Structures are given as C-alpha cells and as structure tokens.
C-alpha cells in the first residue's frame, strides 16, 4: 500500500516534555511537509522539506524542529511542549512543483496537560 503513515495516532504529555512524531511516505515523493491543525481547524504549514531545501514558516516557535533521514521520512520534534501546542499534526508529501497534489497522513493528535 502506498500512502503517508504517521505514528503515534495520539499522544498525551505534560508541559515541558519533549515529544517526537514520525512520518513516512511510500509514494516516491521528493517533498514532505508538516502542518498544524488547531481546534478551530485552521491548517497552518510549519515546514516543507526536500533533500535540498528546508523552508520554515517564520511563525513556528524554535522548539519545533523537523528531522529527516531520507526523502521518505520526516519526523517532527518538539523540545519542550506548551499548552498551545495541543493540536493535530498532519504530515503530507508531494512531488516538487507548484502543480503537485499533496497527500496527507491521518495525523497525530497531541494533548498537552
């Protein structure tokens, strides 16, 4: 099956902890993304990454960082979570190019207590 896979599905943690989310795509795409979908369903791009370029949304706090081992994997690390980090984090992939469709994973729901 070719798709975008994310683990875990859910994660509950306390303020100040470090968390890491995994994303893998088997679609052969060269670009991957992380999005944050908040409680109001606003979809905000956090990072886009291919093997040559990392584009960071300038509004993303520095405690967030993407980690990639190869073009099929893009993990997200949050160094010290805050309550406002509670959200669904969606991973996506596409071919590089403006016309490319993005394929989304099922998301990881983070709850920060």
């Amino acid at each position, binding site marked *: 099956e070719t798709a*975008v896979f994310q683990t875990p599905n859910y994660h509950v943690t306390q303020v100040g902890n470090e968390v890491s989310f995994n994303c893998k795509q088997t679609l052969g795409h060269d670009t991957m*993304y992380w999005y944050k979908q908040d409680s109001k*369903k*606003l*979809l*905000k*791009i956090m990072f*886009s990454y291919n093997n040559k370029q990392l*584009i960071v949304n300038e509004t993303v706090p520095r405690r967030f960082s993407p980690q990639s081992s190869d073009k099929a994997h893009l993990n997200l690390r949050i160094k010290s979570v805050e309550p406002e980090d509670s959200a669904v984090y*969606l991973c996506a992939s596409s071919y590089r190019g*403006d*016309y*490319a*469709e*993005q*394929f*989304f*994973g*099922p*998301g990881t729901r983070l709850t920060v207590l």
Partner: protein
Amino acid sequence: GDSVTQTEGLVTLTEGLPVMLNCTYQSTYSPFLFWYVQHLNEAPKLLLKSFTDNKRPEHQGFHATLHKSSSSFHLQKSSAQLSDSALYYCALSNNRIFFGDGTQLVVKP
C-alpha cells in the same frame, strides 16, 4: 503578500440545493489553485485543482473555475448531498503553498 481568503466559516444548506463556497486569492505570481476536502476524522484530500489551459476541473459533481480577472476559484455543485458535509479548504501554490481558513459545509435532509 500571497494569501487565500474563504469568507464563509460555516455554510448550512438543505440537501438538493446548489452549493457555492467562495475562494479568492492574492498572489505575486500566476498560481495554481486547489480545493481539498476533509471529512470528519479523516485526512484532507484533494478534491480538484486548476488546469493550466483554462479547462474547468470537475470531480464528484464539484467544479471550480479559475477567474484570474477576479482572483477567484469558487467551488460549486448543482445539488448538495448529505455526504458532502465536510470541511473544505482552498489552497494556492506558487513556490510556496497557502491554505485558506476552511469552510465547514453542513448539508441537512
């Protein structure tokens, strides 16, 4: 700067009536426009995207026309179905991607 505006946060209508969800954009360069749909507890997925040759994209009864003169890419369907209830995002791509805030469509019997 580049942006996408979806004016309606919530659209509620009765099954069988026509659907129109608004999308306007601002772009430095000539962009590609997309509509993504997200059903409850599912991931967003592509509904349709603009063509480079001014053809009108259609999918599952939905269509949208890119009007560069008015910077719009409104989503339309002639007759709403209960299964169309979902969250719809308009998106723009021109080297970077920008999503609108989304429009929740609720179709009632």
